[in-house]
């Protein structure tokens, strides 16, 4: 408005008047005063946005504050020590962190194919009514408390999956070393393992990955879909040429968010595993661990230093999860599907 009211002002690139040097051509200041309502609304929203930073900052601050004692006691060996003997000042995350990562990786290996298949089915193949039902069902699956998954995994799944685990150990263990079970073949050799914990965690991240992937798949542009069909494509051909490339970024982001969730998953893992403190190399064997399960299981019995050690472990988990989520956010924002398709 302000600029339109100045018709006499020469626009950029207009022939200069004689005597006008390049230095005299200065961009003018354009102001856009906000209404009071806008200003109040903006203030409220800004406060809400900043509170997220504040909360995250406070959590990090608290963890650093409480974990310092333990970190100071053992120094860098906190990152290299596998054992967790706080009374002997001999503890570290070199076992629990990779073991927790392993659980998360197993969960992803199972969850991602299932989730992508479900997402493609819901967005591309399912009849309209079934689609609505499946979407609510997946959302419901995400809403089940993790303790329920844990109990179900412990009392229902574990006794039934042991046969399969034993089969894998016996038939694949010789060719694929990490599937070998080195303990004698007794019932408990195959229980409470990294693998079973991973299976249960996979059930918890399937709804997240499914839901986010379905969302980006359904945003694949209609024009490109029709373009593929008009070339004589089958539905699967269209999905491969249009939907999957479009959704790639969103799917990567969804997988990373699922990974973050899997690493932080606590109670179901704590219920299933029998904790150990050596780096896991054989995922089917009894015994597993993760940072969050460690914290949950050791929290009650801790003296001051033990508590501080748990806080330090929590800090590492916090930082790692934050990193994964930030990376996921970057991937999502850079992709076409994440950038809400401006074109």
């Amino acid at each position, binding site marked *: 408005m302000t600029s339109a009211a100045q018709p006499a002002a020469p626009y950029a690139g207009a022939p200069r008047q004689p005597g006008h040097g390049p230095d005299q051509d200065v961009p003018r200041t354009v102001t856009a005063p906000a209404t009071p309502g806008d200003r109040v609304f903006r203030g409220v929203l800004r406060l809400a946005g900043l509170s997220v930073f504040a909360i995250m900052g406070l959590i990090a601050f608290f963890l650093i504050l409480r974990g310092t004692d333990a970190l100071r006691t053992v120094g860098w060996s906190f990152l290299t020590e596998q054992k967790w003997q706080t009374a002997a000042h001999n503890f570290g995350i070199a076992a629990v962190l990779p073991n927790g990562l392993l659980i998360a990786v197993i969960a992803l290996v199972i969850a991602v194919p299932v989730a992508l298949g479900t997402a493609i089915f819901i967005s591309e193949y399912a009849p309209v009514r079934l689609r609505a039902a499946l979407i609510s069902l997946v959302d419901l699956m995400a809403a089940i408390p993790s303790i329920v998954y844990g109990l179900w995994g412990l009392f229902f799944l574990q006794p039934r999956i042991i046969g399969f685990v034993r089969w894998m150990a016996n038939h694949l263990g010789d060719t694929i070393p990490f599937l070998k079970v080195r303990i004698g073949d007794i019932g408990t050799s195959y229980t409470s393992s990294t693998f079973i914990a991973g299976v249960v965690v996979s059930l918890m991240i399937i709804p997240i990955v499914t839901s986010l992937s379905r969302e980006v798949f359904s945003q694949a542009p209609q024009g490109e879909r029709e373009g593929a*069909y008009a070339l004589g494509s089958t539905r699967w051909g269209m999905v491969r040429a249009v939907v999957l490339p479009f959704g790639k970024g969103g799917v990567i982001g969804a997988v990373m968010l699922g990974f973050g969730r899997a690493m932080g998953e606590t109670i179901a893992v704590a219920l299933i595993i029998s904790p150990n403190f050596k780096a896991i190399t054989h995922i089917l064997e009894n015994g597993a661990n993760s940072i969050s399960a460690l914290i949950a299981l050791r929290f009650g019995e801790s003296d001051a230093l033990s508590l501080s050690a748990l806080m330090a472990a929590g800090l590492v988990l916090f930082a790692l999860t934050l990193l994964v989520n930030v990376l996921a956010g970057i991937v999502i924002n850079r992709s076409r599907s994440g950038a809400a398709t401006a074109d």
Partner: protein
Amino acid sequence: MTDAPLSSAPPADAPLAGPSPADPVADTITLPPVAPAPYADPRHPQGHPGGGSLAGLETRDVSAWFGTRKVLERVSLAMPAGGVTALIGPSGCGKSTYLRILNRMHEMVRGAALAGEVLLDGDDVYRPGRRPAEVRRRIGMVFQRPNPFPAMSIQDNVASGLKLAGIKVSKEERRDLVETSLRRAGLWDEVSTRLHTPGGALSGGQQQRLCIARSLAVSPDILLMDEPCSALDPTSTRRVEETIAELRGRLTIVIVTHNMQQAQRVSQSCAFFLATHDTPGRIVEAGPTEQIFGSPRDQRTSDYVNGRFG
């Protein structure tokens, strides 16, 4: 019933092939044939697998609905092989719906229904058991908004139809096909040095010609174009029109356009669609383009082509 201008015609099973110049309101309006130009298909040097060199397209009593709303009423039209047929008419008259019925895109819209027959080389494309994908491979389509696959390279875009249709070709054949298709679409000179760059990086007009090349690469018998230039600037529009002119005689083209000058420039035959607020769209008049524009028989056609409404 309401289709008075067309109903004075012989019954639907009247001979279809013969032109009926004496009867302008024949039930099936047969447009004048066009002399086919020699057409060398890189993959079928002897002509199309169907045997004949060019295939015509014809509809009989095509009606269409969206839900309970009828949008097309008994449209019968023969689009001559090797020619360019323009479908004109005001917005909402059903011509785009009609076009999408021709290659079975209409049925993908929820609630869409249709009646009648679409004959490709005399064979109904809606015959039970006939696969839509097979129909669409023979009847290509270029859309109003250019829709290349943005992440694919230019050459992959051109060859995408082969992959989607499961046609296997050797590397050399593929390269030749990419070049031939891009040349035919009039895009080769502009992109030959950057075939591996993404198709989404081209300008709108180039993207549209890329889409034409992509359609041509699967050697369709028919090419449908749904307002292919409405999103393009005048220069790009001219290039696309040149492309259409070069394709004439090589395959059968059906083009929907709102641009009267374009219809006159590119087409040899023309059909005028009209719908009113309470009647579904149907053909008011069809015939050679010079007749529709020069001496239309129907007053409404005359009004429309002379810009008095619509």
